[in-house]
């Protein structure tokens, strides 16, 4: 390890933490972080927070997650309950010291200390053992999590194939909505006069290249909210597997919740044994209980604010037992509905959820489009049939 490796190790360790939490931080981002540290004045290393945030965050979700991750890594003493349990020795995490060391080493003019060079700390950030990484992601929480013992990888290939088929059938059956907008299409039925005239300029005014248009059809945008609380632990694995199928087939966005809401779409895109661990890690910091209305409110005010339109479909996969005030759930769902999104509630029980919150929500007309049972692939097949056959709303199986 060269002399510069200690501060670089710290930055690489930070980048590894960010990656663990779903931020897309590659070698290019790591190099940019080092460059930012070198360019910022030495007397104000705290400004690295803003600089690194701009480099490492790529969307609003990363942006919101950043302050917690930054504090947890660089100022662990300020973060309550964030004890590390791996016991491994780590490079210094004092931010000021890291920046100071970086500047000092570069000022010394050592050729080997150039950050752009092929430094092992940049090219191959130290990856901790799986156990260590997981423990860190969980903030020291117990690994006996509700989902942990149920691996997403334990499904049989024929089950997976059937699930994919069902998801595709449902995706097809979700009616595409006709929009007011038009799009270019070779076999369109309306002539785009402006573009045709424009294109005719290159042929001396002869319209040899007519441009045709057709109305644009938009596929609904699907949001899946999966309840992963204790009461749902026997069903969460099935629900996540189903949700993953919709991520693959129609680019759905998937959120998990019990006391808080977190998006796991990126984690579900890759089908590996570690997916379950990562989903566990995301939810491990949540305390007990189920706050459905709080999570739904968080969903429509923060995570999907700009995308909840008439074209959105929201599927809530939950047993409906809510620790919030019963009336709050109806209000939260009503606000989602007010944006035009249509809500389908999928529950694992034989009958519709008997909780007071759900009863109130179901009693309000026009709030929940359908309340259907989903406890197996057979149930999903029935859901596909119902959606395809466009049976009356609020069908219950």
């Amino acid at each position: 390890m060269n002399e510069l490796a200690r501060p670089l190790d710290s930055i690489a360790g930070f980048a590894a933490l960010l990656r663990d939490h779903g931020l897309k931080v590659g070698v290019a981002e790591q190099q940019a972080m080092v460059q930012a540290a070198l360019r910022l004045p030495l007397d104000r290393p705290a400004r690295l927070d803003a600089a690194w945030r701009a480099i490492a965050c790529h969307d609003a979700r990363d942006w919101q997650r950043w302050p917690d991750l930054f504090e947890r890594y660089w100022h662990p003493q300020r973060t309550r309950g964030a004890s590390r349990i791996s016991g491994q020795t780590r490079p210094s995490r004092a931010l000021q010291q890291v920046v100071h060391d970086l500047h000092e080493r570069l000022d010394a003019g050592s050729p080997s200390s150039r950050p752009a060079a092929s430094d092992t700390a940049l090219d191959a950030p130290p990856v901790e053992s799986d156990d260590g990484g997981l423990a860190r992601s969980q903030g020291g929480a117990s690994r006996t999590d509700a989902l942990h013992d149920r691996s997403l990888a334990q499904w049989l290939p024929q089950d997976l194939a059937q699930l994919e088929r069902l998801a595709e059938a449902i995706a097809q059956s979700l009616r595409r909505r006709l929009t007011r907008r038009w799009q270019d299409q070779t076999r369109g039925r309306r002539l785009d006069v402006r573009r045709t005239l424009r294109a005719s300029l290159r042929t001396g005014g002869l319209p040899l290249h007519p441009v045709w248009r057709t109305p644009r059809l938009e596929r609904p945008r699907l949001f899946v909210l999966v309840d992963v609380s204790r009461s749902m632990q026997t069903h969460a694995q099935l629900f996540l597997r189903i949700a993953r199928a919709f991520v693959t087939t129609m680019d759905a966005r998937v959120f998990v919740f019990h006391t808080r809401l977190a998006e796991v779409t990126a984690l579900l895109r890759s089908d590996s044994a570690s997916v379950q661990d990562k989903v566990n890690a995301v939810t491990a910091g949540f305390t007990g209980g189920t706050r459905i209305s709080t999570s739904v409110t968080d969903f429509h005010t923060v995570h999907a604010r700009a995308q909840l339109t008439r074209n959105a479909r929201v599927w809530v996969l939950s047993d409906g037992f809510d620790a919030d005030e019963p009336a709050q759930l109806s209000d939260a769902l009503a606000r989602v509905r007010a944006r035009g999104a249509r809500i389908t509630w999928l529950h694992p029980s034989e009958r519709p959820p008997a909780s007071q919150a759900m009863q109130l929500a179901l009693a309000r007309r026009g709030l929940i489009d359908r309340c259907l049972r989903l406890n197996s692939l057979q149930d999903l097949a029935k859901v596909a049939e119902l959606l395809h056959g466009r049976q009356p709303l609020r069908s219950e199986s």
Partner: protein
Amino acid sequence: MTEAQLRESLHRAGYITDEALATTLWLAGELQRPLLVEGDAGVGKTALAAALSTARGQVLVRLQCHEGLDLSQAAYEWNYGRQLLAIRLHETRADRVQEADLFTRDYLLERPLLRAISSEQPCVLLIDEIDRADEAFEAFLLEVLADYQITVPELGTVRARHIPQVVLTSNGTRELSDALRRRCLYHYLEYPTLAREIAIVRSTLPGAEGLLIEQAVAFVQRLRREDLVKVPGLAETLDWVRALHRLALRELPDDPGAMMATLACLLKTREDRFQVGPQRVRQLLEGRRTAGVAEAAPQPT
């Protein structure tokens, strides 16, 4: 230009920014990376690029994205009319025009991207509302943003003489590709805090009464906590205070009825107008006097 100087210049240009945004802007210039700014409508994303160009004394080149935006509207287009005219003119002369003569820079119409790339002076390129453009156009942008060059098949590759400072804005109505996001620095612009919003309004409308500005901004901050379809942004606040100032008001009227007519500046949908009736306006006004005005920053949305 140091970060502090940039922040000061932005202030002089009428854009009051916090330290984090100033650092990000400065870093984008240092690393020569595009900056992707997201946030709700009306928080000042487009104004940021305009202020940046003023602060740096550079020209602002703006590309407004929309559905169906293509290469001919964004980058370049051959001036077919002029080419045809040249052919006809040369027909009357002895020397016939060659094909190569027609595909030179003289016959090329520069659209915003090419104009920014081939500008003699450094400039600020604003690619506004990139989420409204199609995915195909987004893919085309990758070459421009990664290498600052545009390839014109008939001419070759045009490389930037000066790397433009690129600012992309998005309202988040469509997910942008990872490839585009990873080429950019990122900043999420939230609604300004009470103190910053007051400072911005004061700076923009120096003629308005101080008390009126404070009360109006506090009212808007409280209004943003309501569950509105269209949350009023900074632009709406400025419109509203401007309207109140034109009405020669020195402070907010106590009578909600008198305020209702001016709320058209803030509430832009029928549902919001219905939700914020005179009764609710009264509550919001009274809250101002009792609960101590929205000192805390508004919740991110």
